[in-house]
């Protein structure tokens, strides 16, 4: 990204804080509209920017274009030497010549039992590849600056650039998006180089930045991502639900840091 010489010619993106030339209408780093009002609720949740159809932004030497609005597609034109990784089932189409490889992960049996893919796929440039998940919602673009660490709920990760390292952990006692107990958290870490991470949020996505020690209780199915500085604990509410008098559990998030939520989720069973 080329920065103009004068401060007054720059527009700061309200979503990722990147500086943009005054002539741009969308952020060159994350695609957020620069000419739209920042939507923040009375309670402090900022709505993730609605990416305009066909919005394009750059990372490394490659470009990403987000197409469609109901179930958006992220189409990436990978330059030579660039690569992205993803769960294999989110691949919508690819150029025949674009090479694929696999990233081996530990804990394969646990991941399989948790409904997580055992292998993460990698697409290499040059070539075009496109990704989408299978539900209406939003593509959330999160540029990760050097030395950032972000935790993302299972089944939300769409694609990440090669400069980001990936690991995962299991959070016990948190309701899984499918069923059963426990939730996998995907962990994305950058070291010396900036990277870009794309998530799929089911429904609408909102973000709130918690202050030091500030707490918020979130339905586990609605949780989407958090800075690793945000502590997450399962807390039982003082109410019983259903015929079997199940306890009601919420995820207690304690700042400092960002928390992202999605408005559509598979909720608790009523029985």
């Amino acid at each position: 990204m080329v920065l103009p010489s004068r401060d007054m010619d720059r527009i700061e993106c309200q979503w990722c804080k990147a500086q943009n030339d005054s002539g741009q209408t969308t952020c060159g780093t994350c695609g957020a509209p620069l000419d739209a009002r920042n939507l923040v609720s009375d309670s402090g949740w900022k709505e993730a920017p609605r990416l305009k159809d066909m919005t394009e932004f750059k990372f490394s030497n490659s470009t990403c274009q987000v197409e469609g609005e109901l179930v958006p597609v992220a189409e990436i034109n990978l330059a030579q030497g660039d690569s992205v990784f993803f769960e294999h089932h989110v691949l919508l189409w690819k150029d025949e010549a674009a090479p694929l490889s696999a990233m081996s992960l530990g804990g394969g049996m646990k991941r399989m039992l948790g409904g997580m893919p055992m292998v993460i796929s990698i697409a290499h440039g040059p070539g075009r590849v496109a990704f989408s998940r299978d539900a209406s919602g939003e593509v959330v673009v999160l540029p990760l600056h050097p030395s950032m660490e972000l935790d993302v709920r299972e089944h939300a990760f769409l694609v990440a650039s090669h400069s980001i390292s990936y690991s995962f952990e299991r959070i016990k006692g948190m309701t899984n998006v499918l069923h059963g107990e426990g939730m996998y958290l995907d962990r994305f870490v950058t070291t010396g180089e900036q990277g870009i991470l794309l998530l799929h949020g089911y429904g609408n996505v909102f973000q709130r930045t918690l202050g030091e020690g500030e707490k918020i209780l979130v339905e586990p199915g609605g949780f989407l991502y958090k800075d690793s500085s945000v502590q997450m604990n399962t807390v039982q509410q003082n109410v019983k639900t259903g015929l079997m008098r199940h306890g009601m559990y919420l995820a207690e998030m304690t700042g400092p840091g960002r928390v992202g939520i999605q408005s559509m989720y598979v909720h608790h069973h009523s029985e």
Partner: protein
Amino acid sequence: MTTTETSTYTCRFCRLPSDASGTSCPNCGAPVDVKSVVSDSGWQEQPAVKDMARIQFGQSTCQIEGTYVPTADFGLAGDDSIYFSHHCVLWTEPTVQMTAMPMAGGWNRVRAGLPLVMLEARGPGHIALSDDAPGEVVAIPIQHGHSVWVREHRFLAATGNVNYTWQQSGIWITTGAGNDQETHFPLGMFIDIFHAEGGPGLLLLHSPGNMFIRDLRQGETICIQPSSLVYKDPTVGMQLHLEYPNAGAMNFGWHSAFSYRQVWLRMWGPGRVAVQSVFERPENSGQITSHSPATRTVW
């Protein structure tokens, strides 16, 4: 928008008057600056509540956030309360007090797939609710002493002064015979009834897809897919309507009995009917052997 000389208007969706200074109705959040969109057949499209629109009730507010799967973010003042099904909670501030509100008729509610327990939330603080399907959050202010009948599973939240009861929908069919006999409830086993007591109240529903309303005149009838009903005025009557289209050469045996038949919900005025554009595909079941009161047409 219907304007008068005193700069008041009557919202065409919630039918309540207020001043015309805002961009959305303070009672239901419907935008006031849009043209009425009415189809040739008389269905009026309920415009989606604008992103971040605020609705006032008591000393509290409700802000509708998002457009795909909107959330209802309640800013509860000290003495105000709302109730809702526990599975709709998206997030809450720790200051909000949640208590259980047990429902009578628990076993019947379990059989109908309805929540056994409602939660009541009291302020001060914020709490947000959402359902899990793309669609619209619809706010219905209920005047003191008035009621609204709502199809089951459409309820999102109501203010504390709105009384909630339910009753059998009375709409059913049975298919098969002997041990294979099955009872089906095209509208659901129960219908939720909300009644404002001790003052006006606010009811929030979630409508998957888009929602359309129609004010039926006295005696005017309409047939709708039973699972598309969102809510109706209590004055609107309803019963089944069974229709057997003429299938030509195939109009015999099981074809005429159930393959081509249509099971409608026949409704008649006066009063308002609201339908959603997403509905469940009718069940592929056997020949109808008995049913609740119904009209019948064989073409």
